[in-house]
């Protein structure tokens, strides 16, 4: 077995509950590589919600909280406030994060609190068997949109950028090397880091949502259907780029290293008021 895998994975808990062809394993490993690159595993704790992607950290040899549907960010905020010097990484999915957990996402982004949120976006509720999620494309037929999905999908990167998140990146499971770097950068960044990962669910989404059920071909689709955003110098502090020729922008989409972070603001206020 891979050396890093042995170091970071509770091998006695294997096999994982992920289906063959699932993208979660790629993300699980990319995060391990990021932890290793940073060399601060003892200062990292993971928090996740409910859904397939929320099982990613449950196999880590780290302190992990596998919490309630939609509430991972709220748990993570409490943990962060209790231990401001530590790094908290949240694993969540599109339904967990944007639907039921939307309120916590909105407010955590607006606070710009120092968390790293990895949102695995497979456009579907996978664990419950393939129902539409807030990111399901218009027209897609799922178990709960038999006549085609009619809702406008929510662009979560755009959402959190508009609210004040200071590190926003989007990658796919077809870009594991870039994803690993983004996770490491997100953890190092002091502020609300949001990393969306487009990830395949060949079993529950497959042909109806991606038009393809072969995992490798879905991943090829991620390469064909995206373009890597190459901003001009200093252009990262504004709005995130728009799709071009029907291709979704990926890469680092928004980055504002000088944005004021929640815990820093708390400390500043307490010092100014003579409390600390």
């Amino acid at each position: 077995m891979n050396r890093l895998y042995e170091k970071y994975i509770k091998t006695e808990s294997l096999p994982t509950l992920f289906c063959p062809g699932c993208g979660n394993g790629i993300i699980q490993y990319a995060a391990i590589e990021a932890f290793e690159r940073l060399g601060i595993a003892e200062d990292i704790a993971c928090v996740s919600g409910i859904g397939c992607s929320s099982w990613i950290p449950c196999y880590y040899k780290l302190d992990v909280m596998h919490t309630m549907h939609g509430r991972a960010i709220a748990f993570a905020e409490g943990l962060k406030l209790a231990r401001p010097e530590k790094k908290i990484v949240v694993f969540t999915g599109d339904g967990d994060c944007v639907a039921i957990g939307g309120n916590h996402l909105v407010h955590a982004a607006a606070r710009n609190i120092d968390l790293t949120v990895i949102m695995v976006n497979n456009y579907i509720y996978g664990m419950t068997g393939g129902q539409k999620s807030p990111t399901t494309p218009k027209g897609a037929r799922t178990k709960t949109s038999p006549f085609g999905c009619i809702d406008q999908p929510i662009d979560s990167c755009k959402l959190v950028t508009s609210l004040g998140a200071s590190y926003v990146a989007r990658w796919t499971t077809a870009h594991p090397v870039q994803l690993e770097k983004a996770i490491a950068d997100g953890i190092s960044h002091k502020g609300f880091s949001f990393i969306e990962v487009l990830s395949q669910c060949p079993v529950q989404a497959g042909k109806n949502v991606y038009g393809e059920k072969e995992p490798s071909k879905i991943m090829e689709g991620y390469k064909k259907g995206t373009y890597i955003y190459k901003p001009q110098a200093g252009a990262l502090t504004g709005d995130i780029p728009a799709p071009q020729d029907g291709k979704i922008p990926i890469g680092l989409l928004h980055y504002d290293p000088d944005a004021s972070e929640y815990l820093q603001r708390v400390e500043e206020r307490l010092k100014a008021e003579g409390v600390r």
Partner: protein
Amino acid sequence: MERDSNTKTQVVLQGNEACAKGAVYAGCRFFAGYPITPSTEIIEMLSGEMQKAGGAFIQMEDEIGSACAIIGARWGGSKAMTATSGPGYTLMQEAIGFAAVTETPIVIVNVQRGGPSTGQPTLSSQQDIYQARYGSHGDYGIIVLAPSSVQEMYDFTVKAFDLAEQFRGPVILLADEVVGHMREKIEIFSGDRRVSSPKKKYAISPSTDFFKGANTLVEGQLHDEMGRRIGHMADKSGAFIEKITRKIEDNVDMIADVTTYCMEDADVAIVAWGSVARPSLNAVKKARGIKDDRILPKFRVVRDLVKRGVRETMHTDYSHLKVGLIKINTVWPFPEELLQQAAENVDTVIVPEMNIGKYCREIQRALPDKKVVPLPKCGGNIHTPKELLDKILEEVGVDE
């Protein structure tokens, strides 16, 4: 409760403020909350006091987020609390189940108001007695304390933190608008509290705080002692459910707290919990002729009992009634044995409650040989001592 008597001071506080002060003294260093009447003074006070004490405070976007945040903070090593009321408490129920299944020591204050739904934001009730015990889905054990004075708002808050740590789980402080908003002179303590850590911790789940190198897995699915899921295994899951219920229910003797008053020779008992214990105590004092003007408001016993078919001349006073009070401080786990002992020599038990008569069912179950009479009162007004005494008269009749 262990106290450092050197730092004792007397102050006049509101119940909610006393709760906030008690939390700080108990070592609470994290508070997350959301404003809601009639509990708001707790979040208001702790928005400053928590950080002055070196802790952290956050006003969350909703009540379920608040309950989740305090669980997160507790795993970070900070004793943590939230406070709410009515709809907010309902919204927290999923997190209370999570704290029970992950055995996370937290304190949740419910300053009860009238329900259901938006109900009566500014008036009192005791309608959440069963929600406090059974509110979250699934089976679990939980400790619920019911304060009936400002002093108890302080003392029981401190006690709630100790019990949460000892029995590893959520503890509910089930207050109500009456005790939350009244002001009384109480004794509070400051400085470092000497806490001896409990000898035995009743945890089946992983219990090492985060960042201690234990690779703790906090898992909301039923799990083994390593945190690994067992939810798909019926035998192990059944055993787990029994354990997290029995660690509370089987240790009721260590948790139960019941106060009695004038029960030595009583043949009628008022069994009350929370703020209703106040008019109940006054009723006992009135019937017993115990003068205590500070607590007992003077009232003339004049009531038209003719309407009830009772001859007026026979009941201008209640002095022949041998009434006692059994005040239940730990409403859950149900202190069955203590109640049975306390009520051993009475024939009749009156159970006043500011709800449709809920907890009375437990008391009827525990005292099958007694005449147990509910005295429910909904709408937001607390019982008067006179109402209680009239009810007793109605039930026990005339002294021959």
